C-alpha cells in the first residue's frame, strides 16, 4: 500500500465562525480518519517517537491497537504512561516532541500522533465509565501543592500506589493552568473536570481555597503526618517590560486577561467578573499564552487583534497549530516589532473625564535579527528611527512569568536558582529531605507535558523514598 504523504487534516470549525465562539476549534478525528491515519504508522523497530515523549508513551503500541480497532486497548496503553491523555492530545507541542522524531517525517509528514491520542482518549471518555477501583491503602500520606498538570500527575501516580494523597489548591477550582490559563476553545473545561473527577474516584482528596505558604506552611504539612510533599505551584507573577504606560487602564498581563475569561468566565454574558470586550487589542509576545490571549480577545468581540513579537516567524515559541489557527482567524502578526511605550488618553482640561488613563495606542520599534545569543536564537536588535504607532484600546503583556515567592519564603532551607525556580535533582528532590518539586515552579514557564513528566518522576522517587524510610 502506498504511503499517504500528509497527515489527515484535523476537522475544525470554520475560522470565520469560530472566531466568534468559545467552542472547541478542532472537533477531532472520526473513527474513519483515525483508522486511516493509524495506517500511516510504519511501526518501526527503533520507535524514535517514544524518546520524544516526556512521559515515554509506547506510541507505536497504541497506534497498533487502533489499527486493530481495539480503541480501549489503545487507551490502556496510553493511560499506563499519562494521567491526562485527553489533555495532552490537545495541548502538547507534538511537532517538537514525538512527531519531530517520527521516521515517516524524514520524507513525508509525520504520523498525527497527538490527533490519534486525542481520538482514543475522547472515545474512551464518551463510551467508558471508569471503575472507581480504589487501590489498597498502604498507610502513608503525601501532600501535593497545586492542582496543575504536575500536581495532578504526581497525585494520580501515588494514589494508584496506595498512598493517601491530598492536593492543596489556592484557587476555587482544581486544574491550575488547565482551568485558568488555557481557553475553553482549546481545552474544554469539562475534560479537565473529568480528569480531576477520575482522581477523586481513586481516592485523591482535593482541598481548594488553601494557599500553601499562607493558610498552611510546608512544615505544617509534615506535622500533619504527610511523609513527603510535592510542590507544583506553577509559574507565578507576570513579567512586564518596564516601559512607560504599563499601568494604564486596559493594560493586562496575559495571566490576568486569561484568568478573567477562563477561570472567572468573564466571556459569559452575565458574568460578575468584568473584562474589556471589543475594540482593538495588541498582545505582546509569541508563545502559546500570547496566542491564547489574542484568540480570546477576538472571541470577546475585538475588531482587530495584533500579535507584537520582537523576533521573526521561525522563532515564535508557540505550537505551530496555534499560530496557524490564529492566522486563519485573522490575527494580525506584527513580527520583528517591539513595544517602546504604551500611550494613554489624558484630558488636561478635565481631570474627571472618564476616558482619562485608558490606553489609546502602542508605540513600537522595528527589529532586525543580529548575532545568535547563548541559546542559539538570533538576538533582536532595534532599527533606529523605525518607530511607529498602532491604535489600540487594550494591551496584553504575555512575556513570561517569575516564580511565586510565597513558598520559597516560607520553607527554610529550600534552595532556589537565580530565576527563583526551586532547585531539584533528577528525581525532583529539592534541597530538603521529603520535599519534591516539578513543573513551572522548577523550570519557569514550560509545557503541560513536561510538567506531567516531572510529576511522574517525582511520584516514583517519593514512593521509593517512603518505602526506604519505612523499611
Amino acid at each position: 500500500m502506498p504511503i499517504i504523504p500528509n497527515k489527515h487534516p484535523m476537522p475544525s470549525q470554520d475560522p470565520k465562525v469560530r472566531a466568534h465562539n468559545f467552542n472547541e476549534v478542532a472537533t477531532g478525528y472520526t473513527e474513519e480518519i483515525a483508522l486511516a491515519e493509524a495506517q500511516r504508522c510504519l511501526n518501526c523497530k527503533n520507535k524514535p517517537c517514544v524518546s520524544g515523549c516526556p512521559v515515554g508513551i509506547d506510541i507505536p503500541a497504541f497506534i497498533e491497537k487502533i489499527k486493530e480497532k481495539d480503541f480501549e486497548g489503545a487507551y490502556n496503553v496510553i493511560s499506563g504512561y499519562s494521567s491526562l491523555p485527553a489533555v495532552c492530545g490537545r495541548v502538547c507541542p507534538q511537532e517538537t516532541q514525538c512527531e519531530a522524531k517520527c521516521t515517516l517525517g524524514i520524507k513525508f509528514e509525520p504520523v498525527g500522533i497527538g490527533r490519534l491520542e486525542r481520538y482514543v482518549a475522547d472515545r474512551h471518555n464518551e463510551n467508558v465509565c471508569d471503575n472507581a477501583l480504589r487501590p489498597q491503602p498502604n498507610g502513608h500520606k503525601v501532600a501535593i501543592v497545586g492542582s496543575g498538570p504536575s500536581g495532578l500527575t504526581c497525585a494520580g501516580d501515588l494514589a494508584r500506589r496506595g498512598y493517601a494523597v491530598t492536593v492543596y489548591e489556592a484557587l476555587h477550582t482544581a486544574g491550575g493552568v488547565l482551568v485558568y490559563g488555557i481557553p475553553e476553545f482549546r481545552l474544554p473545561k469539562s475534560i479537565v473536570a473529568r480528569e480531576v473527577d477520575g482522581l477523586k474516584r481513586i481516592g485523591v482528596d482535593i482541598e481548594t481555597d488553601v494557599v500553601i505558604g499562607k493558610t498552611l506552611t510546608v512544615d505544617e504539612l509534615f506535622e500533619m503526618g504527610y511523609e513527603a510533599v510535592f510542590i507544583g505551584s506553577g509559574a507565578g507573577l507576570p513579567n512586564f517590560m518596564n516601559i512607560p504606560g504599563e499601568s494604564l487602564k486596559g493594560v493586562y498581563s496575559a495571566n490576568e486577561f486569561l484568568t478573567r475569561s477562563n477561570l472567572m468566565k468573564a466571556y459569559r454574558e452575565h458574568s460578575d467578573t468584568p473584562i474589556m470586550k471589543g475594540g482593538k487589542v495588541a498582545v505582546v509576545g509569541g508563545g502559546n499564552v500570547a496566542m491564547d490571549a489574542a484568540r480570546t480577545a477576538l472571541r470577546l468581540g475585538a475588531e482587530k487583534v495584533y500579535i507584537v513579537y520582537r523576533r521573526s516567524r521561525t522563532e515564535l515559541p508557540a505550537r505551530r497549530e496555534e499560530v496557524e489557527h490564529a492566522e486563519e482567524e485573522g490575527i494580525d502578526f506584527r513580527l520583528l516589532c517591539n513595544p517602546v511605550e504604551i500611550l494613554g488618553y489624558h484630558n488636561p482640561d478635565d481631570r474627571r473625564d472618564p476616558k482619562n488613563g485608558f490606553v489609546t495606542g502602542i508605540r513600537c520599534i522595528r527589529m532586525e535579527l543580529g548575532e545568535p545569543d547563548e541559546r542559539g536564537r538570533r538576538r533582536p536588535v532595534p532599527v533606529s528611527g523605525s518607530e511607529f504607532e498602532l491604535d489600540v484600546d487594550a494591551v496584553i503583556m504575555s512575556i513570561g512569568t517569575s516564580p511565586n515567592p510565597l513558598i520559597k519564603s516560607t520553607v527554610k532551607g529550600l534552595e532556589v536558582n537565580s530565576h527563583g525556580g526551586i532547585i531539584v535533582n533528577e528525581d525532583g528532590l529539592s534541597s530538603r529531605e521529603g520535599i519534591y518539586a516539578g513543573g513551572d515552579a522548577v523550570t519557569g514557564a514550560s509545557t503541560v507535558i513536561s510538567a506531567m513528566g516531572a510529576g511522574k518522576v517525582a511520584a516514583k522517587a517519593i514512593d521509593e523514598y517512603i518505602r526506604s524510610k519505612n523499611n
Partner: protein
Amino acid sequence: MYRILEKRELNPTVTFMSIDAPLVARKAKPGQFIILRVDEEGERIPLTVAGYDREKGSVDIIFQIVGATTMKLNAKKQGENICDFVGPLGNPTEVDGVKKACIVGGGVGCAIAYPVAKELHDLGCEVTTIAGFRSRDLVILEDEFDKVSDRFYRMSDDGSWGEKGLVTAPLHELLENGERFDVVIAIGPVIMMKFVTLETRKYDQKTIISMNPIMIDGTGMCGCCRLTVTGADGKKQTKFACVDGPDFDAFTVDFDEAMMRSTMYAEFERHAREETCNLFKAEVK
C-alpha cells in the same frame, strides 16, 4: 462552603460578618486580607481581615455595600454559607518595635484600622487614633476604638460627629506641635491616604498605608493588583499588593496612578450594581 456565624448591620451601608473558617483564623493577623466568592458564579473580591477568634475558628469581615458582589453578600443571612473564603493573604502589618503609633482611619477603612490599633494596644503601644467619616450615621466601631486608644480624634465632613473637618487636621496639629510617632498607619480611601502622606512627608514622619486594589487570585499570579513604587535607589518599580503588600511605605507609592487604576471597571460596576439592585427589588416583590 463557609458558614456565616454572625451578621450585624453596623450602619445602613456597612455590614459585619463573622465567618467560620478555622484554617484562616489560625493564621490571620492584622493587616492581612482574605478573598471570597459569594456563590459559584461570583467574582473573587478581596476584603481585609477585621478580626478573628482563633479558638472559635472564625474570621470577621466588615464591608461596605458598594457593588453587585457586596450586595449579594449582604443578602446572605446568618447561618447561610458563602462559597469560598481563602486566606490569610498578604503580609501582616509590621508591629515589631512600635511603641507609639498614630492610626488614621477613613470611612470603612476604619474596619481594617481597628484590628491594627487593637493589636498595638495589646502589645503595650501608645495608640493615637484619628477616625473620619462623612457623617454620624456612617460611624462604625466607635466604642471599640475608644477602648484601645490613648487619644481618640473624631472627625466628620459635616460636623455631625466630633469635629468638622478632615483627618489631616488633627494630624497636622499633632505633628506641627512637635509630636512624633514610631509610625503613622493610614487606612482608607486612596485619596485620604495620599493627603495624609502629603502631611506626614512635610515632617519626615514614617508612614505606612494599606492598599486595596482590584485583585483576582490574590496569591501572586495575575498581576492585576500592581502599583508603582519608587525604590531606595530612586528607580520606579512594579509591586504587587497581594504578595508584596498590602502595606507599603507611603513615601514610595504613586497614589495618583493607584486611584486611576481603581476606576478601570467603574462603568461595568455601575451596570452590575443597577442590575443587582433591580434583581433584589424584584425578589422583594
